[in-house]
């Protein structure tokens, strides 16, 4: 075990995967000499050289298109999109190509690309350095969508992503890149996809969240505990595939749910979770499902702390759920 931050754990995961398998390589903007603008690829260029840690021209569609070609030819490319807000020039390559290659070729051309990208608010990034676009991608059949919230999961899920046979969008909660550090297993460490993590046990209300919202939910749970409400925090870890069983088991126990995400509410990932609960947990629910999310506006700069779900808003929603039944 080594004590690492999330960004250090990602760096370790990349380095170890590259040491273990010469077919693994990294490409993106400023990932080489500069070590990535968040330093996630620090030291890799030095250790593995410019052929495996590739500084690309400023073109996201070029990065993803080239990564697809490399994958088709048998490499295991890990593409970095500098901020997920800049992924849209590559939307066509991701949605029309990467996600559909296996299917459209009748299984002949599996397309194994990992796309790493920092997402989310809380760093004073305004409209274009704060977004949480996970719902666009979760909505696209053929893409796996992964969001870690702890250093250990960051390395473990990244390692699984690199070995997964399918394309994976690996979204990194940049607000907590360095905020939390934790024990990370040394050597190969895999966390399976489709298994949620119970970040905190509780019996009265379930908080469903992922990524940078996990520490906020844990904080809310502590406040709630002080007034006798025990909240269970479920960290989804992988949005696709989704661990339905863990969600349903928790809700069966608590009967109340607050869904939390930074992204806008309308058609956000929480809407899918709410639909799942309506379909499969209807008779366990004691209160209407609550959502605490970003508002249905672009992500504002000066008001970001009021836009982002706060522990207070989560506590408020959880209390409302408890009061309702």
């Amino acid at each position, binding site marked *: 075990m080594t004590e690492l931050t999330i960004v250090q754990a990602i760096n370790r995961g990349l380095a170890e995967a590259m040491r273990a398998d010469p077919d693994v390589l990294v490409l993106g903007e400023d990932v080489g000499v500069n070590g990535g603008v968040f330093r996630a690829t620090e030291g890799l260029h030095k250790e593995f050289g410019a052929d495996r840690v590739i*500084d690309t*021209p*400023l073109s996201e*569609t070029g990065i993803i298109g080239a990564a697809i070609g490399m994958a088709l030819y048998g490499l295991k490319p890990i593409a970095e999109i500098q901020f997920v807000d800049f992924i849209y020039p590559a939307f066509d390559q991701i949605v029309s190509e990467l996600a559909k290659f296996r299917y459209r070729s009748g299984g002949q051309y599996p397309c194994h690309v990992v796309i790493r990208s920092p997402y989310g608010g809380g760093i004073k990034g305004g409209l274009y350095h704060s977004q949480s676009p996970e719902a666009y991608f979760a909505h696209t059949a053929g893409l796996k969508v992964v969001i870690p919230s702890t250093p250990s999961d960051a390395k473990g899920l990244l390692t699984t992503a690199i070995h997964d046979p399918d394309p994976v969008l690996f979204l990194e909660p940049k607000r907590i890149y360095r905020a939390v550090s934790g024990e990370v297993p040394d050597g190969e460490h895999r966390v399976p996809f489709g298994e949620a993590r119970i970040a905190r046990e509780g019996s009265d209300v379930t908080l469903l969240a992922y990524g940078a919202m996990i520490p906020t939910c844990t904080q809310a749970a502590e406040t709630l505990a002080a007034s006798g409400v025990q909240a269970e925090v479920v960290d989804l870890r992988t949005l696709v595939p989704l661990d339905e069983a863990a969600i349903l088991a928790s809700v069966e126990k608590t009967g109340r749910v607050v869904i939390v995400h930074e992204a806008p509410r309308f058609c956000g990932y929480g809407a899918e979770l709410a639909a799942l609960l309506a379909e499969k947990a209807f008779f366990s629910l004691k209160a209407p499902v609550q959502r605490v999310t970003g508002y*249905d506006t672009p992500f*504002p700069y000066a*008001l970001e702390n009021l836009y982002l779900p706060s522990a*207070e808003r989560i506590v408020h929603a959880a209390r409302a759920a408890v009061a309702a039944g």
Partner: protein
Amino acid sequence: MSESAPVPEVATSENPTEIPAADLPKIYRAMVLARVVDERCLTLQRQGRIGFYVPLQGQEAAQVGSAWALDPEDWIFPAYRELAVALVRGVPVKLLLDQFIGNSGDVLKGRQMPNHYGYREFRFVTASSPVGTQISQAVGAAMAARWKGEEIVTVTYFGDGTTSSNDFHAGLNFAGVFKAPTIFFCQNNQWAISLPRDRQTKSETLAVKATAYGFPGVVVDGTDVHAVYRAVREARARALAGEGPTLIEAQVYRLGPHSTSDDPRRYRTDAELALWKEKDPLARMKHELLAAALLTEDDDVALWETTRKEVVAAFEAAEATPPVDPLTMFDDVFAERTPALEAQRAEFEESQKAGTGKS
């Protein structure tokens, strides 16, 4: 000098591609103002009084020279580094600083990161962060102006790295096909964050790319305000004569970091920086004015001093401006708030009152 930069009058000299001599001191003043705002903002960011900043040092001649060559009616589609262009357009320093703080004086209502300003009043279109998107938009606006029979051009600013973007291709291609009255003004500052110009494209120059789109591309020394002015005047004349677009590559150097989040020592050498510092456009301009007896050393000292005082005063005024009203968060998503937004706004207002919304 007021807290705005001097603004060009429509060029009236005999030779329309030469800067009128009387404008030269004004151009220098605009460059000094830009440099002073820039230095001040870097300090303010270090002090935590503004959140972020994108400096332009080294690019003043390219920006002031190009903006000076335009008509006030021309539309500008900038990226995020065009402070001196905004100043030449007449945007008051206080208004820019309001944007950097994101206070209630900010025309953008505190919504964007510093440097992403825009002012309809000054025909300076609000910038976004994704690079290159403004390029094809500038082409469309130029097509629209021609369709409406208006004698203006559009000018879009972007960097060397941005020539790799989707919209560089799309925009230049459209402009060529439709002979749009657009000027593509590329500031090749040699770096796109950590990537040097020669790792961005194997083209010998960026300007040469225009050839493939069927229109002229020219390289100019972007530290020479005259060369820049001349190139833009010529491109503007061509555009208005119906001859189509021009790509101008102004060769400059980004003397500072990419942004306040960047550390250029990780990827470039002090020797390279020192070489370009010798070509500092402000020193060059000052030298020229001294030689032409349009400026004395004493004038220069006084100019820097008064400019610094004015910028400090403008910042104090901006800092004293009240914060943005939180309820404005729900405005301008659409022309009118939808019922769903209305409900979210009401819920938000309630939580603000109850103190349950703060993080």
